[in-house]
């Protein structure tokens, strides 16, 4: 019975493509791969646009550039949007470093925006400007910290899944904003804009956007130092890398989790504060404008490095504005901009595979088959 094994001629397929992990790619090559990916994505976008519009590809690229940097208004807008996206990415990064997947940036921005708007709307008339701004800021930060603390508390004490929890909190924020809009705007149109929020506008230095950009620039440096050179930052890394090690050396994991999420939520709320108090002077349910999600990508693409995030957020904003311009100049449906952005992101994210892995095509397959024939 045991001898019934036949060494039979079996048709087996040798894998054609081998995927192996790269040891470590020199920085120059890693950058080269990414640059090639961006160029390839532009090329592909050009081809798609020509296919749809029949226009000259170079005019497409010129339009993309024009969309982001064509006028001084556009330059300022690109800078501001980059700064806002970057700030959210910085907030998420503190949590991500701890392997705490905070995908509730959207809700944390909104709750900060809401807190700011509520202060402006209800006590705008009754306190001096500087005090109002201070109250707006503190309320927003507290609201954001609470929005971050809730999922952290439940994860620390009951082991809930932070991804779902933070995601759900986004919808709570949206509903709260909707509630505020209904209550505050008696006209029934549910809009709160500069005409309603007349007090508590942030001071204008050089340009209406400049203060917000400056705040984020400072924040970038602060977060970089916080994560890299402080005891808190060190604890965040240890908890993120291995909770067991953290326990072993006596780090209070729950405390670190709560503290870090409070910071993460508060920074997101700061963005809400800057958006409402500094630039929009109004609030809608889409004030956060998906930054809470886009920032996840910004953070990951930069490998959690705050200074790299300046580049990745700038890149994403540049592409988005460019694509928007292309679809409007060439008279295309607004979704076309989304398609172009999607293509670009696909290339940028996809190239990370080639940074980390190497493909080998199996060349000896034929030889083996030939030899097998000879043996037979």
């Amino acid at each position, binding site marked *: *019975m*045991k*001898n*019934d*094994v036949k*060494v*039979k001629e*079996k048709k*087996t*397929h*040798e*894998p054609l493509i*081998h995927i*192996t*992990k*790269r*040891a470590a790619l020199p920085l120059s090559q890693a950058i080269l791969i990414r640059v090639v990916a961006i160029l390839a994505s532009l090329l592909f976008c050009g081809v798609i646009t020509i296919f749809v519009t029949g226009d000259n590809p170079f005019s497409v690229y010129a339009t993309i550039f024009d969309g982001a940097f064509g006028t001084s208004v556009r330059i300022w807008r690109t800078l501001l949007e980059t700064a806002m996206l970057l700030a959210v990415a910085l907030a998420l990064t503190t949590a991500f470093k701890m392997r705490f997947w905070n995908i509730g940036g959207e809700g944390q921005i909104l709750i900060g925006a809401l807190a700011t708007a509520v202060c402006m709307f209800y006590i705008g008339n009754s306190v001096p400007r500087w005090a109002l701004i201070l109250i707006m800021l503190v309320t927003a930060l507290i609201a954001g910290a609470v929005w971050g603390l809730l999922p952290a508390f439940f994860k620390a004490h009951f082991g809930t899944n932070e991804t779902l929890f933070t995601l759900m909190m986004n919808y709570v924020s949206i509903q709260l904003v909707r509630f505020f809009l209904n209550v505050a705007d008696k006209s029934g149109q549910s809009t709160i804009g500069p005409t309603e929020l007349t007090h508590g506008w942030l001071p204008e230095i050089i340009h209406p956007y400049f203060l917000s950009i400056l705040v984020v620039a400072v924040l970038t440096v602060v977060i970089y130092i916080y994560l890299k*050179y*402080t*005891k*808190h*930052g*060190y604890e965040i*890394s*240890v908890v993120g*890398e*291995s909770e*067991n*090690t953290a*326990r*072993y*050396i*006596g780090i209070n994991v729950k405390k670190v989790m709560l503290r870090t999420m409070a910071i993460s939520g508060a920074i997101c709320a700061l963005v809400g504060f800057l958006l409402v108090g500094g630039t929009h002077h109004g609030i809608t349910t889409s004030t956060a404008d998906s930054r809470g999600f886009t920032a996840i990508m910004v953070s990951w693409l930069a490998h959690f490095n705050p200074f790299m995030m300046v580049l990745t957020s700038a890149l994403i904003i540049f592409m988005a504005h460019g694509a928007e311009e292309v679809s409007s100049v060439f008279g295309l449906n607004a979704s076309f901009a989304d398609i172009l952005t999607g293509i670009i992101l696909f290339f940028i994210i996809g190239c990370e595979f080639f940074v980390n892995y*190497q493909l080998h095509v199996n060349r*000896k397959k034929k030889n*083996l088959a030939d*030899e*097998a024939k000879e*043996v037979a």
Partner: protein
Amino acid sequence: MSNVPALELKGITKRFGEVVANRDVDLDVRHGEILAILGENGSGKTTLMNMISGIYFPDEGEIFIDGAPVTIASPKDAFSYGIGMIHQHFKLIDVFTAAENIVLGIEDGKYDLKRATERIAEITARYGFELDPKKKIYDMAVSEKQTVEIIKVLYRGAEILILDEPTAVLTPQETQKLFAVLRKMRDDGKSIIIITHKMHEVLSISDRVAVLRRGEHIATVNTAETNEGALTEMMVGKKVSLNIARSEPKEPLDRLVVRGLNCVNREGVKVLDNVSFEARSGEILGIAGIAGSGQRELLEAIAGLQKLENGEILYYDPKAGGEEVNLRDKTPVQIRDLGVRLSFVPEDRLGMGLVGNMDITDNMMLRSYRVGHSFFVDRKPPHELAERIIDELEVVTPGTTTPVRRLSGGNVQKVLVGREIAAAPTVLMAAYPVRGLDINSSYTIYHLLNRQKESGVAVIFVGEDLDVLLELCDRILVIGSGVITGTLDARKTTKEEVGYLMTATERREEA
């Protein structure tokens, strides 16, 4: 038997990124023989076997079965050629019986457990296994689980059996039983490949030995014509002395006294049952036992990482003139704040003792980063410590900024042990400190432990290799299923006695 080898490898090469796991390996296994594959950790033994059993695919080279070239691209292919591998980590389903596990995944269109049980009985009788096919896996001891794994591959008609470190989890007595079974299988004409790095086992079980070093096949020799020294030299590439110096303890004083510890794990199972012992200054206390008998919980309890039901852990401070401190229910930080200098080298180096993705400096900082009131970390002292350890313990690394996970096992352990010793401990606990280390690194660690002992530290050493425990320790504490089954004088006891005590609780339960 024909002269054609049952299995032959020609020019097998396998790379992982820049690492060459196997380079141009030629190897043959005959019918009816036991071939031992000997090599240090990281020498490519397991990778090579994984290619034979279809888990990896070689980058270069050919495999022949009974002289015919074959392509093994999956474990299924391997089975069709009669190759069966028994892995170090068992792949069994806990809630199934032995028989159910054995027939699992066989696609012959029918599920006839009764016939299967008969066939299992036939196999067990033929080779002298002891197995109850109706017993559930979760009721089984490790050795029984291994038996199920072996029968599983025999049931599928394996002619070539590969066993990856089969004795790592067995007591000396169980090892002897396994070897008897393997010999019967060999006499029945089966080819058996056994991977191991325990020299005396190689000499007692195998017919031939193939030695691998750094992925290359050094030589295959007849076991009868070689000896331990020659094999070690081939394995390591140079001569090594295999003696551990052991000095007499100087003025041993009770340093750590453990009384009546009871501990229940998350599943509610009792893992420590009324454990009492004392560790003395200037001596090495060995803890022997089958893996998972409560050693980890015991050390973690002392280090302040394990919740206890009851019992006490008393520490006698040599500085304060022998003042008594109870460490029970204290966190690691509280223990340190009491001035207790307790160092702990945990079993899980990269998952607990160190952070794999951090560099050596940052890993040094794990113990000391809290020092001072500054909001910022001071990387200077840990950096100096890192340089000192690299220098003194001859850690092979490109520099202090290399992530420790990139270092080899031995160097990782040097970094960890170095850090723990640098804290000038009065109690040093080390769990399996030489697991996975090559011979040279192992001896470095033994010497370090010995030096600590000589300077008056109470050393607690949890080990798995009984030969080493007997040579290195002063006293040996034997633990079985969370119960201390004996304390032995390491200079007078024997391996058999330790092995007997290791399983004493199991026998009591069965009786």
